[in-house]
């Protein structure tokens, strides 16, 4: 199953990926990252289709997509 990994040190919590995901798989964490943001995370299992739309809009290259 495809998945994404979010680099919490790079994510600035802008939420753009949550809107870009066609399956609404991404949500924001409710805990701070070490850099002081609420980072994005893959919230639902077996949801990601590996389309990389989130990667396209991510300003901080914080997302890696696996397929």
């Amino acid at each position, binding site marked *: 199953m495809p*998945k994404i990994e979010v680099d919490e040190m790079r994510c600035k919590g802008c939420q753009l990926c949550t809107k870009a995901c066609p399956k609404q798989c991404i949500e924001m964490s409710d805990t701070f990252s070490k850099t002081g943001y609420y980072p994005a995370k893959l919230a639902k299992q077996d949801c990601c289709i590996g389309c990389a739309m989130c*990667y396209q809009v991510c300003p901080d290259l914080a997302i890696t997509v696996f397929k």
Partner: protein
Amino acid sequence: MNAITKRPESLLDVTMHYCPGCGHSVAHRLIAETMDELKIRERTVVVAPVGCAVFADKYFNCDSIQGPHGRGPAIATGIKRAKPDSIVFSYQGDGDLASIGMAEIVHAAARGENITVIFINNAIYGMTGGQMAPTTLVGQTATTAPKGRNPLLQGFPMNISEMLSKLESPRYIERVSVDSAPNVIKAKKAIKKAFENQVNKIGFSFVEVLSICPTNWGVTPLKGLDFLREKMMPQYPLGVFKDEKESVAQKIQEGK
């Protein structure tokens, strides 16, 4: 399972200083991917005049020169004329290019310099703290237009792509946006073409990129997307304004 996305080699592996949601870094990635794909990193120079992207030289893995506010196209002209084998791009914001640097961009375009210009339009001054730009929309508030841009006092927004497309020399002018994944993919195509034109000696190529500036607009990044789509796009329609297949030299040779 393999990673299908990869940070381009032409972009250094560092955290960028841009605010959350800022479109600059997306544009940076698209340029870096283009440099990788065209294998031009070793001969590319980024010209970074004053603005939020003044530190672009810390991010692109190629030679760089930081310049005075607005003078990117003049600096790029000097580099390209002195070293014609180099690939030179000027990366400019809207305060930089459309205000203080208006003469430089217009004349570099008019001379048909074989350079690439990436123009980030977010309708505001970013680095200095949200002052009114030539591209600020009518009614849009800014720290120097607290009641909103008033056309009676401050005139109307300037559409740079349309203006430059009236000149004879420019070969390629397109306005794109990085507000959504499909638009980012389109923006990549435009940016790649603007660099290919330089590699193939076609001539002056210009890509205007609509981008959000949540910090200085005073909205969340997601609300910023709404503003870009609902307010900016009607004023700054996306599209190709000029696309010439031949260089000026080829046209003159053929007597066109």
